[in-house]
């Protein structure tokens, strides 16, 4: 990682942009291979080019490697830079380094995941609203009183909690009965196992909202082997390419797309604004879109 930064810095020197403002985008996981983070990265890079500032992108090797992310930020503060857009792997654990950055006069915004520091702008999906979008879609397709289930992510995380709460509120608001809420810990195999248990205990369910597409795809497998896929609609969240393919094939019914590119772009814009002394709102919603057969093609 360090080498990469050095190489990046050297490149920047050679291309003569060394004097431009330097911003860091620190994501939860590497962009390579993960379309979500790749899109965040692309959004930030494009915005950087547009505004003529230098954007560096970093991330810990996995989303659970909180310590690595803290170390990266500490190292970057030590080197000095003009702003940090951070997707914290663990909001509380990252809070002290965010404070340290602010103390060093470096503006910080949170992207994708809200941190716990007061007074730091959050730029990202309103997950509760996104989950409610999915819930409303389910409501529109089912009769009142139908039984539905929720596959939760890790509910100690704010994203997991927001999606669980938003979907539950939405489903209950239109008179559906939430008969099971189980966690699949964002994991495909665990989501599949949880779904198997849900079907066994609740043979009459008509729909399941899975808090991410991995679990939704697991739920599809569980329903397929139980011969129930035709009776139960599966709605996920994230609109990842596998899910888009599944929606087009008629397995998953729908999913919710975030706008990761906006997160990167809005993030850099906000940092530039802060650097220029402007004030920005405490929350900037990057928006969500419902994806079903009609528009899934573009997410493949």
């Amino acid at each position, binding site marked *: 990682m360090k080498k990469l930064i050095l190489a990046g810095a050297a490149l920047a020197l050679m291309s003569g942009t060394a004097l431009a403002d330097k911003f860091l985008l620190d994501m939860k996981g*590497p962009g390579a291979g993960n379309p979500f983070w790749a899109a965040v990265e692309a959004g930030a890079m494009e915005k950087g080019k547009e505004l003529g500032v230098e954007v560096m992108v970093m991330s810990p090797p996995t989303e659970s490697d909180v310590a690595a992310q803290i170390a990266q930020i500490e190292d970057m503060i030590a080197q000095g830079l003009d702003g940090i857009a951070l997707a914290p792997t663990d909001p509380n654990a990252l809070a002290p380094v965010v404070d340290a950055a602010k103390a060093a006069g470096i503006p910080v915004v949170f992207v994708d995941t809200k941190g716990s520091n007061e007074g730091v702008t959050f730029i990202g999906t309103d997950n509760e609203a996104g989950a409610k979008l999915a819930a409303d879609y389910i409501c529109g397709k089912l009769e009142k009183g139908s039984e539905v289930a929720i596959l939760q992510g890790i509910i100690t995380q704010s994203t997991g909690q927001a999606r669980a709460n938003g979907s539950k509120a939405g489903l209950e608001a239109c008179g559906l009965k939430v008969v099971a809420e189980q966690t699949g810990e964002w994991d495909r*195999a665990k989501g599949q196992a949880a779904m*198997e248990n849900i079907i066994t205990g609740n043979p009459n369910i008509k729909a399941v909202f899975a808090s991410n597409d991995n679990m939704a795809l697991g739920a599809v497998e569980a329903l397929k082997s139980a011969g129930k896929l035709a009776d139960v609609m599966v709605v996920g969240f994230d609109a990842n390419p*596998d899910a888009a393919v599944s929606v087009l094939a008629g397995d998953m019914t729908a999913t919710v797309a975030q706008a990761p590119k906006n997160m990167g772009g809005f993030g850099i814009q906000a940092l530039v604004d802060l650097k220029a002394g402007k004030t920005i709102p405490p929350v900037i919603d990057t928006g969500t879109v419902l994806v079903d057969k009609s528009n899934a093609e573009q997410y493949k």
Partner: protein
Amino acid sequence: MLGNSPRISSFLEHYGIVVIVVAMMAFLYASRPDVFMSLANLTNIIKQNATLALLALGMFVVIVTAGIDLSVGSVMALGMMCLAVTAKAGVPWPIVILIGPLVGITAGLVNGLGLTVLRLPHPFIMTLGTLNIARGLSSLITEGAPVSGLGREVRYLGQANYDFGFFPPPTGLPASLFVVGISAVGMWFFLNRTSMGRHIFAIGGNPHAARVSGINVDRVLVYVYAISGFFAGLGGLLLAGRTDSGFPLAGQNAELDAIAAVIIGGASFFGGRGTVLGVMAGVLIMGLMRNGLNLNNVSPFWQQILIGLVIIAAVYIDVLRRHAAVRR
């Protein structure tokens, strides 16, 4: 009366764990009579725990030698990713299904050779290394992306279900049950009826005795870790089949579940003790507990706490039993 008591205690020593499994099943049946004993639920329990059972069998052989293999979860993910990528690349399925186990055996050989040739002080260290290496490699293969759509034949062992024209369609006996069954019986035969199996127990009981009895301890250890790797790879094949995908984060912390199952099943961490039957019972106890708590909608946090308590209780019961045995 008294004349019978050693027989009872010997019965409990060998089959007490089975009594616990039966008691748990009775308890779960009482808590959810409508669901627990349903064929669908029982099928679920089998399908959901097949991978853990394979990992635990491999872990058991290692623990019998007083070793530990922390790498099984990552090696499983690596096997899964390798076979998923090759399946997508259009490699014929008979080769693809061999890839998981072969990757596992290779990782196991690395563990075994690292331990014996590099003379690392404890298998914890070598396998902690390979845990990280295998996890990194599994992510590196596709830069972290999951791979879906493996084809029917590749999925067969993990997904096929036999209804024998008897079980109603979604239920039945999963192919993975037969994989686990054959593996368990094979492992029992290997450990109890072959010279190498007995040498494995001797190494766990007293490595010095094994060495001076002319047993090539290093060679046996290399085989032991290769066996553990093999089962991790086979577990990867089952999980890939079951989920129709390979994902690099599969099996995180699975090594801890496998260790827990082996220990709950009565194997000793100090080596030389334990039975295949006990390990299978340990897997079932973990599986039944999770299933029962899920059916009763108990929060996952309580599940973790309970599993922790059961591990401690199981080992404590074992300690008590050994004390009683020594006094006798």
